[in-house]
């Protein structure tokens, strides 16, 4: 590492769709591999990524998504999100992207810290048992701000 001070990245994840789950996990795992301190704070729908029942079922939306080659009038039909998600997963798999759960494992092996948002847990009626074991702590905004105050990179996703 040399005499360089340890760098730090703090990410807020507020969305729980498949496409929004990859960037924070990839960035944090690579940051940790570079010996950075890496923290991810999950809030609102982002909590789905660290919720046991949801993590393997993250979807992408077909509606209002200009990247999906499908008119909105069809995208609103039942089952379309599932179909589009299936297509997306197949593509990701083909180019060598890992499943989300595997990326979470990689993050933890490299020392990334995961935090659940305390007020969101109350709002969504979640308890500690609903969350993945990989979650390090349940914290509020003040704690996260203190953590992020001296970070080199802060992102809101």
């Amino acid at each position, binding site marked *: 590492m*040399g005499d360089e001070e340890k760098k730090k990245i703090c990410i807020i994840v507020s969305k729980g769709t498949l496409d929004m789950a990859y960037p924070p996990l990839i960035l944090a795992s*690579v940051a940790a*591999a*570079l*010996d950075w301190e890496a923290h991810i704070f999950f809030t609102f729908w982002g909590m789905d990524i660290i919720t046991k029942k949801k993590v393997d079922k993250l979807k992408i939306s077909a509606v209002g998504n200009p990247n999906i080659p499908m008119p909105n009038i069809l995208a609103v039909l039942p089952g379309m999100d599932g179909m589009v998600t299936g297509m997306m997963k197949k593509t990701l798999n083909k180019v*060598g992207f890992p499943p989300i759960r595997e990326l979470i494992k*990689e993050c933890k092996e*490299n020392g990334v810290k995961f935090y659940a948002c305390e007020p969101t847990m109350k709002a969504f009626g979640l308890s500690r048992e609903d969350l993945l074991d990989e979650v390090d702590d349940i914290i509020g905004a003040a704690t996260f701000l203190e953590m992020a105050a001296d970070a080199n990179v802060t992102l809101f996703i």
Partner: protein
Amino acid sequence: MSEVKADIVVDARGKMCPYPVLETKKALKKAQSGQVIEVIANDQGAKKDIPVLVEKTGNELIKVDEKENEIRFYIKVK
């Protein structure tokens, strides 16, 4: 320095970012000082990412071979 002998080989072919970096990091953790790690990747992002990882973790990139789409990195562990 035409032939470099590797003690550990990391085959990350067919894997995308962040895997080449993460698997190289794993190998760096396990390796002993003085050993040479060979990383094989065909993710073009690795071309820039692996040298960054090697530098930031205080190791030495002694050779990079690129043939067609395959890149081979040789890292000396400090």
